[in-house]
């Protein structure tokens, strides 16, 4: 049972990561820096709870703010470029952050052992949950509560005017600009919201794994972050959730019995999925047919 609880925790945290990339992708920018914001959130939250003995919620709040500010600061110079240049710029930023934590040591003496991040060895002993008597189930509920809140906020944002502005910028920048939309503001705010979500996700990630190190936040995590929304489809927040369940639940855990072959299949399935459904699992057409299927009875009775 614990295995499934753990899996559900992983899916929850990765959903937060995917949602942060979803938000940025809405304005059709590809950001490979989400793993970096995730790392910033993880380190900040963990340092606050471990070294300064803060409450978890306060630490998560601060980590969200710090990640959001980082994203905002990255947004301005990075948004001068588009397309491939932006991919490379954010990729390089992500790697720079990872290398910063690779060289980052800040430890204090607590009792007989030293605590705090220690360069290449990473950051051990993030024991907030066991110390405060949270069971695995409590943690799970907490994570999914956060996921639900973030998804609800994004859903609301999507329906609101701000979401329409973001999508307009994503669809056609020039047209959006000539319609009087402040393109830079839309892009930077999308980046900032993405940073905030990644910061929350990172903070939770640090606490349930109890050990973080620079290697976890590399290019692979960054590509996963954009893979979720792209595979899931950008028309809806639930696409991202679906893709995370598909990748983490089915491809990574469900196919474990295949042993070595699983990794081969993993890349191949992504390529296949993109060839068959280039707009993602849940595209606009798919949702329409899903609605028809679900509400078919109602429509026929009404007609």
């Amino acid at each position, binding site marked *: 049972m614990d295995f499934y609880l753990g899996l559900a925790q992983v899916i929850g945290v990765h959903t937060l990561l995917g949602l942060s990339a979803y938000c940025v*992708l809405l304005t*059709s920018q*590809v950001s490979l820096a989400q793993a970096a914001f995730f790392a910033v959130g993880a380190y900040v939250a963990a340092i606050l709870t471990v070294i300064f003995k803060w409450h978890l919620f306060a630490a998560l709040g601060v980590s969200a703010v710090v990640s959001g500010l980082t994203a905002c600061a990255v947004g301005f*110079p*990075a948004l*001068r*470029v588009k*397309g*491939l*240049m932006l*991919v*490379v*710029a954010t*990729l*390089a*930023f992500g*790697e*720079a952050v990872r*290398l*910063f934590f*690779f*060289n980052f040591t800040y430890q204090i003496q607590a009792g007989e052992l030293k605590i705090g991040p220690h360069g*290449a060895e990473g950051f051990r002993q993030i024991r907030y949950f066991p110390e405060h008597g949270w069971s695995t189930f409590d943690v799970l509920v907490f994570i999914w509560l956060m996921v639900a809140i973030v998804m609800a906020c994004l859903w609301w944002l999507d329906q609101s005017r701000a979401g329409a502005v973001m999508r307009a910028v994503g669809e056609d920048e020039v047209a959006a600009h000539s319609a009087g939309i402040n393109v830079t503001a839309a892009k930077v705010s999308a980046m900032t919201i993405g940073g905030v979500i990644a910061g929350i996700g990172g903070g939770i990630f640090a606490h349930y794994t109890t050990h973080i190190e620079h290697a976890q936040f*590399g*290019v*692979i995590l960054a*590509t996963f972050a*954009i*893979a979720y929304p*792209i*595979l899931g489809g*950008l028309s809806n927040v639930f696409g991202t959730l679906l893709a995370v369940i598909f990748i983490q639940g089915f491809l990574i855990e469900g196919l474990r019995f295949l042993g*070595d*072959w699983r*990794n*081969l299949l*993993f*890349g*191949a*399935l*992504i*390529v296949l*999925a*993109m*060839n068959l459904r*280039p*707009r993602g699992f849940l595209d606009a057409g798919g949702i329409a047919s899903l609605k028809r299927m679900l509400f078919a009875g109602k429509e026929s009775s009404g007609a």
Partner: protein
Amino acid sequence: MDLLDLIDAVQSVADGLLFGSTYALLGIGFTLIFGVMHKINLSYAAASIGAAYGSLLLLSGFTAPAIVVFMAAALCGGVIGALVYFIGFKFIPVANPLATLMSTVGLLLLIDEIIVHTTQGVPLAYPALYSDVVVRLGPFMLRGDLMFVFVLGCACMVLFLLLLYRTRLGIATRAVSQQPVASQLCGISILQVNVLTFVVTGILGGIAGAMSGAAIGMLSPLLAQPLTVKGLIVTVIGGLGSIPGAIIAGLIVGGLESLFQFLRGVTERDLYIMMLLFAFLVFRPGGIFAKAPGRD
């Protein structure tokens, strides 16, 4: 810094410049695919390493001289390039760059895993030419294998530039990269040009993979990711779509990387390369040879 340190610093820059020809070739590959297709091929560096592995696999039965291994790598690179086009690009709508980006990420993971699967993840020794030759220039030494890599890289670039500016294929490629619709109306087959572009860049990539294998002395699937990052950085610093820019940026990145490694150690080395990239993005977003504004 006294004289001895200065000599060491110059020495490391020289080594880095020689190795930088690998980055330059990778940068040309990225830039050419982007120029023709307006799409990013993130699997390119992995395919290059895959081609180098393929050459070892192809010639595993008998002991071949290193030059034959290099040619085999180029051959494998061409084949893998065509495969990458048909699997990751051909059937995905042109108007959907995100899907292509994702499919090349899938290919990157797939190629990496195929390498790990066939070799059990063990690094393999890669043959180098002239590895016992050392040229002494005053206080400096130039390693023979690095010099060979450099000369080979330069030869490939010259051949490639001749191909691009002196042959019909080159004209067609440049036409497609500028105006796909107009060139199609003039009777150029876009499919043919795209496939040939992938084959040519695959050959360049295969040679680049073999070169990095020879310069480092071994091949490892772990090389794919850093080479992808470096190749992309070179592409951007050189100015997207600019081939001379990619060449010069490759040499600059190689030289500076080696210098920073000498000055600040291996763990901080890449940090400074990233900062260099940021400096370029902020102060000169078009790269070294920025195109004049107003052209598409």
